[in-house]
C-alpha cells in the first residue's frame, strides 16, 4: 500500500480506564496495554487503541471543565430528524408512529443501494434520462415501478408495481414480492374481530409464497401472540403481576446443572409487582393464538437454489441492508434469494447537539433546520489545543494542505535502520502563550521497535493573535511565509547531500527549537525505523496490517496561565490542583510518520 501522508491521532483522556467507573475491567485493560497513565507507554497498536484515538477535528472541548471531549464522552441530543433523500424534516411524533425510515417515496436499491426513482412502467423510460431528482417529476401514466438508475434494477423484477407515483411507502407495505396483496396491521385486526373473514385472511396471507399456506407472517404472529398473552392475563391493565406465569422467568436457571454462581444485589425494577399467579395462562394452541408449526420441508427452496445458483442469491451485505420484512415468516423475516429482496426505505438521519457529560454545558449545537449548516455553539478542540503538523525534513516537502487530501508528500518509504528526521510544527490556537512538554518512548512499542528521539521535548509557543488580522495583514504574512519557504528550500538542498541536516543557523542539536513563528514552533524528531524482519519460529509468519507503519506514541502536556475563572471544575483539571491560574492539559497522541520499507 502506498505511503501515507503523516497524520496525528489524539487519545481522549476519557478512555483512560481510571476515569471510567469500570470496576472489574482494570486488570484486563492493563493486560492489553491500552491503559495509559503517564508512566506507562501507550501502544497505538494495541487492539483497544483504535477505540480511543481520534483525529483532532473529531474532538470537542468543554470550556468549563477545560477538558477534551470525544464522541465517546459527550452526551448527545437529537435536534432534527430528516430523510437524507427528500430532506424532509420528520417530526419526532411521526418517528414514534412510523419508525426510523422515510415513509414517503424515498428508497434505495436492494442490489446496489443506489437511489431508486419512480418511473412509469407502461412507457418504460430509462430512469437515467427521465427520472427527476426527488421523484417529483412523476411519469404520466401508471402503473409505476421503482427503478435504479445505476444498476438498472427495477421493482418489476420482484413483481412489484404501484398504482400511484407517490406515497410509495404506503403502497409497498401492502404488497408482497410477486405483487400479492398483504394485510396491514389495522386491516388484520379488523379481520380478527370478524370471524367470517378469518379463513379468507389466512389464505390471503399464505399465498404468493412457497411453503404451507398456513404460515403467519412475522408481524401477524407477533400480533396474535401478543393479543393471546394479553387475553390470558386476568387484568391486562394491572401493571403488577404482569404476565404472571412469565414471572417464573425470574427464577429460572438450569439449577439441575448446578451452574449457579453469584448473586447481584440491587433492586429489580419488577420487585414491586412480582405478584405470582402461576398458571394464569396456558400455551398458545392455534394459529390465531400465535402458535406456528414449523414447516421443515425446504426442498422447494433447495430446488430454487439449484436452479438459480449463486447469482440468484443475495450477498450477506445486501441482506444486512434489508429492512426487517414483516411480510415474511420463514427465516424470521430474512430473505435469501434476490427475488425476495425489497426496496429499502431510506433510514432517517439526525442533527445532534452535544453536551459535556460532566458539567452538562452544551459544547456543540447545530441550527435545527436541515438546510442550514450554521452552528449556534461549536467548541472544537482545534481552537484550544495545539495542532501538530508533520513533514519530513530531508524529503521535498509538499505540505499537504488540508483542503486537498490528494496533495501530500511524495510517497517515499522509510528505509529500515536509516535515521530519518521529521519536522513537527506545533501551532498554538489560544491567546495565551503555552508551554509544551513532550514525552515519547525511546522505542516504539510492538514487535518492531523503532528508535525515537525528540530533539527538543520542552518549549514555549507564543500566543495566537486574532486569526483575522493575520488574514488582513496578508502581504506581510505572505512575505514571512515566502521567507520561511526559501529557508526551507535551502535546508532541503543541504538535506539531500548526506541524509543528516546539520548546518550553521539550524543545528540539529538537542534541546534546540528548529524554527519559531508567530504562534508556532517546529522541532525535529529523529527516528531510526525498525527492520521489519520476522524471526522464523514465531507463529505469525507475516506482518499484521499496518505493522510496517511507523507510529510514535507521544505524551503531550500543555500548560498555560489563564485569568482565573471562578469555577472549580477548571482548576481541578490537570494534575496539580493548587494553582488556580495555571491550566494544564495532558494527553497521548500518535504521530503517523510513514511506512517502513519491507
Amino acid at each position, binding site marked *: 500500500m502506498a505511503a501515507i501522508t503523516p497524520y496525528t491521532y489524539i487519545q481522549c483522556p476519557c478512555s483512560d480506564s481510571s476515569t471510567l467507573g469500570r470496576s472489574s475491567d482494570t486488570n484486563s485493560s492493563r493486560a492489553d496495554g491500552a491503559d495509559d497513565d503517564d508512566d506507562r507507554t501507550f501502544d497505538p497498536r494495541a487492539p483497544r487503541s483504535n477505540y480511543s484515538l481520534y483525529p483532532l477535528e473529531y474532538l470537542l472541548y468543554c470550556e468549563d471543565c477545560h477538558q477534551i471531549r470525544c464522541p465517546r464522552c459527550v452526551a448527545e441530543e437529537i435536534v432534527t430528524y430528516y430523510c437524507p433523500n427528500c430532506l424532509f424534516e420528520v417530526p419526532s411524533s411521526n418517528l414514534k408512529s412510523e419508525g426510523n425510515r422515510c415513509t414517503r417515496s424515498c428508497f434505495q436499491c436492494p442490489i446496489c443501494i443506489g437511489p431508486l426513482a419512480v418511473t412509469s412502467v407502461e412507457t418504460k423510460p430509462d*430512469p437515467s434520462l427521465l427520472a*427527476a431528482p426527488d421523484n417529483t417529476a412523476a411519469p404520466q401514466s401508471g402503473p409505476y415501478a421503482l427503478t435504479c438508475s445505476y444498476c438498472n434494477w427495477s421493482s418489476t423484477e420482484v413483481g412489484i408495481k404501484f398504482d400511484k407515483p407517490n406515497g410509495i411507502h404506503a403502497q409497498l407495505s401492502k404488497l408482497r414480492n410477486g405483487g400479492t396483496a398483504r394485510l396491514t396491521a389495522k386491516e388484520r385486526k379488523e379481520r380478527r374481530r370478524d370471524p367470517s373473514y378469518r379463513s379468507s385472511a389466512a389464505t390471503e396471507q399464505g399465498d404468493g409464497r412457497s411453503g404451507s399456506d398456513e404460515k403467519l407472517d412475522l408481524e401477524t404472529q407477533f400480533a396474535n401472540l401478543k393479543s393471546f398473552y394479553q387475553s390470558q392475563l386476568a387484568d391486562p391493565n394491572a401493571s403488577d403481576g404482569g404476565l404472571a406465569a412469565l414471572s417464573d422467568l425470574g427464577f429460572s436457571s438450569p439449577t439441575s446443572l448446578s451452574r449457579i454462581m453469584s448473586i447481584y444485589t440491587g433492586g429489580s425494577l419488577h420487585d414491586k409487582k412480582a405478584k405470582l399467579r402461576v398458571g394464569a395462562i396456558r400455551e398458545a394452541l392455534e394459529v390465531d393464538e400465535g402458535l406456528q408449526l414449523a414447516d421443515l420441508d425446504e426442498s422447494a427452496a433447495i430446488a430454487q437454489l439449484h436452479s438459480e445458483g449463486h447469482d440468484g442469491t443475495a450477498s450477506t451485505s445486501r441482506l444486512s441492508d434489508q429492512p426487517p420484512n414483516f411480510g415474511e415468516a420463514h427465516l424470521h423475516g430474512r430473505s435469501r434469494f434476490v427475488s425476495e429482496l425489497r426496496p429499502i426505505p431510506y433510514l432517517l438521519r439526525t442533527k445532534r447537539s452535544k453536551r459535556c457529560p460532566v458539567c452538562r454545558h452544551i459544547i*456543540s449545537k447545530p441550527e435545527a433546520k436541515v438546510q442550514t449548516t450554521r452552528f449556534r455553539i461549536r467548541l472544537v478542540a482545534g481552537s484550544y489545543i495545539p495542532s501538530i503538523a508533520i513533514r519530513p525534513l530531508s524529503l521535498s516537502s509538499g505540505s499537504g*494542505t488540508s483542503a486537498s487530501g490528494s496533495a501530500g508528500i511524495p510517497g517515499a518509504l522509510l528505509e529500515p535502520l536509516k535515521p530519518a528526521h521529521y519536522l513537527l510544527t506545533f501551532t498554538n490556537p489560544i491567546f495565551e502563550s503555552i508551554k509544551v512538554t513532550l514525552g515519547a518512548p525511546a522505542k516504539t512499542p510492538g514487535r518492531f521497535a523503532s528508535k525515537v528521539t525528540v530533539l527538543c521535548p520542552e518549549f514555549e509557543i507564543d500566543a495566537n493573535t486574532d486569526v483575522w488580522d493575520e488574514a488582513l495583514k496578508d502581504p506581510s504574512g505572505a512575505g514571512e511565509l515566502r521567507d520561511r519557504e526559501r529557508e526551507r528550500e535551502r535546508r532541503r538542498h543541504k538535506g539531500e547531500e548526506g541524509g543528516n541536516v546539520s548546518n550553521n543557523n539550524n543545528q540539529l542539536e538537542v534541546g534546540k527549537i528548529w524554527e519559531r513563528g508567530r504562534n508556532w514552533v517546529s522541532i525535529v524528531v529523529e527516528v531510526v525505523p525498525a527492520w521489519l524482519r520476522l524471526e522464523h519460529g514465531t507463529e505469525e509468519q507475516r506482518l499484521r496490517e499496518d505493522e510496517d507503519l511507523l507510529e510514535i506514541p507521544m505524551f503531550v502536556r500543555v500548560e498555560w496561565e489563564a485569568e482565573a475563572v471562578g469555577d472549580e471544575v477548571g482548576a481541578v483539571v490537570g494534575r496539580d490542583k493548587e494553582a488556580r491560574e495555571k491550566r494544564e492539559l495532558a494527553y497521548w497522541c500518535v504521530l503517523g510518520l510513514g511506512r517502513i520499507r519491507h
Partner: protein
Amino acid sequence: MSLRRPPRGEYIETDTGNKVARKATLVGTQNIMLGGKTVIQPEVMIRGDLVRTIQASSQSGATPNSTAVAIGRYCFLSRGCCLRPPGRLYKGAFTYMPLRMGDHVFVGPGSVVQAASIGSHVHIGAKVVIGEFAIIKDYVRILDGTVVPPNMVIPNFSIVAGQPARLIGEVPEGGHEAFELRDLYKTVGNNPQPAPS
C-alpha cells in the same frame, strides 16, 4: 505533457481573481459563470455549450438565462477534471439543465461532474464521477474514486464513498475549516505562494 512554466504564465488571471490555465478547455465560455477567485487548472474541461434548450418554469425559476455552468468563489478545479451540465428528457423532449456550484468547491483531478447542483464547501476527490442531476449539499466530502449515481441527493456534512456512493460517515464539528480553499487559491497561479504550514 505541458511545460512546467510557459514563458507568458501558465494562467490567465482575470480581474475578479479567477486563475484560468491556458491549457484548460472551456467550450461555450459565454455560458460559463465564474464567481471569482476560482482556479481552473490545465486540462480541465467545461462544457458551457450544452445549454438548456427548454426554458421550463418548473426548474430553478423561470429566469430565461443561458447559463450552462455557474461556479461560485474560491472553487478549485484540479487538472483534468470535467464539468458538464446534466441532460434528460423533459416533457418528451431532451434538454440540458444548468450545473450550479457554490463556493469553496474542490474538484479533484480527473473527476467528471454532471450534478444539477453542488453546494458550498464541498470536497470532491480524485477520479470521482458525479452522475447526472445529483444534488450535493454543503460540507460534503466525496472520497477518491467514488461514483455518485444519477439523481442521488447528498445532505449536508456527509462523507460518501463507494460505487455507487453510500454514506460512510459524517463531517465532524472540527472538520469544517478543512473545506476552506482560500489558502489553496494562493498556492497556484503565475506567482504561487507556498501553503502555510
